[in-house]
């Protein structure tokens, strides 16, 4: 089969030039300059194309009509007119509200296109016989061609780059013949793929099904022809745009937070439908960071590398956190903007954030995985019933790591399973308050997931050993601070310092 013969046949069926190139299996940039590519694909074609042009100008009506009309295989999807319509519709949408440099098109095509591909496949088989494979489509499938042809054009016209994680432009297309053709397809499907047993659930018709099952190797041309024409019929109307919906990218904003208040919960604390605390770390951060990226603050997800109890402060470098912001209007955060947010959160007087930055989504694995391997650093204020002795202080200088067995604390046992978990305590270092010999300040390094309060007092013997059991005396915990979390993520950024 010569390219020349193929193109001539396609033309006679009313196939547009772009689609002719698809059937010539053109790639990427080859769609840019149609004539050049046609020439390149077959030198002989060159003259013939010109001849063809002449023939047309001489007035061979059927061919000319086909060329000017709507392409029978792409239904005008690749026509200049449609490109303009699409572009104008995108510009007329909320597109301008999104400050994104990267876009991606998600086009929902009418099923008619896949049916037409199959019709043309059968037609080519009849015309060119065995040179047409029955398992692999003879063309560059429309879905792929959209990426090769429409995508670069739209990106260029909108002056945006392509990124699968960029602003998603969801485009719904339909064609006036679609409903009618789908109805026929339902009948065809029953005949071509009868249910094997009456009880077997019939497979729903879908684009995926068409792609997988509707091939000459699986459907007979004769069966197909009972419902559809081979080659596909010419159409009057072009494909139509039904809707454009914009979906901004998922933006991840990371930083570290510190918590100064002993009366602030991590997330909204609701008991029996009533709020126990007016505010939470999550809400304060989202309130000040969210509006830059989206209007819908409720859709933002707040995550952190662990969490502390309401009455625990988080000091030192703070705890890594990340906000997942879906459908974001903006993808960037300047240092100035980030610094303004940091100061606004500081003004709460309860929480402070710093190192605020936009991070790639892949980096979220740092916060999500290996939680058990992380080390956590705490400072506990503990109370003895009697003044501390040197012996007790020495017993609480532990530099070699040891293991404890910790049962699920009673305070969470009503909503969590009962387990006995082994936890590693890396070090313990106790000091005493100069003015109060009953007050110990104990620095503890533990494996993440250790319940510190229970580690101190032993919780009725449910955590063993405990610091209390180690010294053999009752000891309670009165206050706790998180002073470090050994996760070096996100990287440090000083937003207060502007770089030139």
């Amino acid at each position, binding site marked *: 089969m010569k390219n020349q013969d193929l193109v001539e046949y396609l033309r006679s069926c009313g196939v547009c030039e772009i689609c002719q190139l698809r059937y010539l299996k053109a790639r990427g940039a080859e769609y840019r300059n149609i004539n050049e590519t046609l020439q390149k694909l077959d030198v002989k074609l060159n003259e013939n194309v010109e001849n063809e042009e002449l023939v047309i100008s001489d007035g061979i009506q059927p061919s000319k009509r086909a060329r000017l009309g709507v392409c029978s295989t792409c239904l005008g999807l690749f026509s200049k007119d449609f490109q303009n319509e699409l572009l104008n519709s995108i510009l007329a949408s909320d597109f301008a509200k999104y400050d994104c440099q990267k876009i991606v098109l998600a086009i929902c095509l009418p099923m008619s296109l896949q049916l037409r591909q199959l019709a043309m496949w059968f037609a080519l088989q009849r015309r060119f016989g065995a040179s047409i494979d029955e398992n692999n489509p003879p063309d560059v499938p429309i879905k792929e061609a959209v990426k090769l042809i429409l995508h670069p054009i739209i990106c260029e016209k909108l002056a945006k780059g392509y990124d699968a994680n960029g602003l998603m432009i969801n485009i719904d297309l339909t064609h006036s013949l679609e409903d009618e053709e789908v109805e026929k397809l339902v009948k065809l499907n029953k005949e071509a793929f009868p249910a094997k047993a009456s009880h077997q659930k019939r497979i729903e018709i879908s684009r995926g099904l068409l792609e997988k099952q509707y091939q000459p190797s699986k459907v007979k041309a004769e069966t197909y022809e009972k419902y559809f024409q081979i080659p596909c019929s010419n159409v009057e109307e072009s494909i139509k745009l039904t809707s454009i919906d914009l979906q901004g990218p998922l933006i991840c904003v990371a930083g570290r937070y*510190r918590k100064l208040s002993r009366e602030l919960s991590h997330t909204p604390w609701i008991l029996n439908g009533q709020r126990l605390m007016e505010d939470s770390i999550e809400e304060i951060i989202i309130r000040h960071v969210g509006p830059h990226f989206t209007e819908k603050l409720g859709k933002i997800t707040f995550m952190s590398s662990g969490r502390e109890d309401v009455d625990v402060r988080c000091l*030192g470098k703070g705890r890594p956190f990340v906000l997942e912001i879906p459908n974001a209007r903006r993808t960037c955060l300047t240092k100035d903007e980030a610094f303004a947010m940091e100061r606004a959160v*500081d003004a709460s007087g309860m929480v*402070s954030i710093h190192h605020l930055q936009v991070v790639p989504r892949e980096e979220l694995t740092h916060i999500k995985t290996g939680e058990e391997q992380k080390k956590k650093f705490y400072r506990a204020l503990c109370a003895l019933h009697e003044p501390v002795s040197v012996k007790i202080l020495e017993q609480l200088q532990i530099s070699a790591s040891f293991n404890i067995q910790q*049962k699920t604390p*009673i*305070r969470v046992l009503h909503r969590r399973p009962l387990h006995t978990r082994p936890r590693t305590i890396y070090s313990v270092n106790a000091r*005493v308050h100069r003015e109060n010999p009953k007050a110990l300040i104990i620095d503890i390094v533990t494996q993440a997931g250790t319940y510190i309060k229970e580690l101190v007092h032993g919780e009725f013997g449910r955590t063993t050993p405990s610091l209390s059991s180690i010294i053999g005396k009752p000891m309670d915990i009165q206050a706790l601070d998180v002073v470090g979390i050994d996760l070096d993520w996100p990287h440090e950024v000083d937003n207060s310092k502007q770089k030139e």
Partner: protein
Amino acid sequence: MSVQADDPLEPFYFEHEEQEICGKLVPPITESFQEDYPTVVDRFFTRYYYFKGDVPYQVLYHSNRICLICLAPEHPALAEGISSVNFDIGNVDRSQNVVKGKGKKGGMILQAESTLALLTTANGATYKVPSCIRGKLVEVNTAIVEEPKLLEQLPEGAGYFAILLPKIENCDAIKASLLTQEQYEERLKTKNEGLPQIESTEDRTQNKNKEVLA
């Protein structure tokens, strides 16, 4: 100088490191110290009591409805000296209780009067420790089986026999069925006033014998 050198605690004194957060200096953790800080039991539990005959038991009711079943401080066995604790109560061994998942599936369902454990004292008396409340058995304290003597010295709560989880809808009825701290003290008072000391002991012994026979 010499005073410091003589102070054996000198190497162990805490020094606060200054840090600024939200534009203010972080108060040292030592500022949170309270001389009269309530105990763990006082912070999170309410004390309730249950009488089996004349023998008192204590239910520590956590704010999240989890209950710890303990001997009341006035339980006669504590004075007599405890020689053994056994969760194998004959037809069933409570220590074989296994719970799975958040819902504590598989936990034994206990009634207030169900026997939780058997307790024997130095003078050979046996007490059937009741469950005190209706609920699901979550955990038994096997440490007191190995060292029953601990019960006499452990701080409040640590000598718990078992942890029970009542159904939310039963909680009000359960609390109403138990004696509050005030009611309990009242009952102890009237009992002590009503009977001379010696008779009271006899009375207790009789009750105990009844229990052993039961």
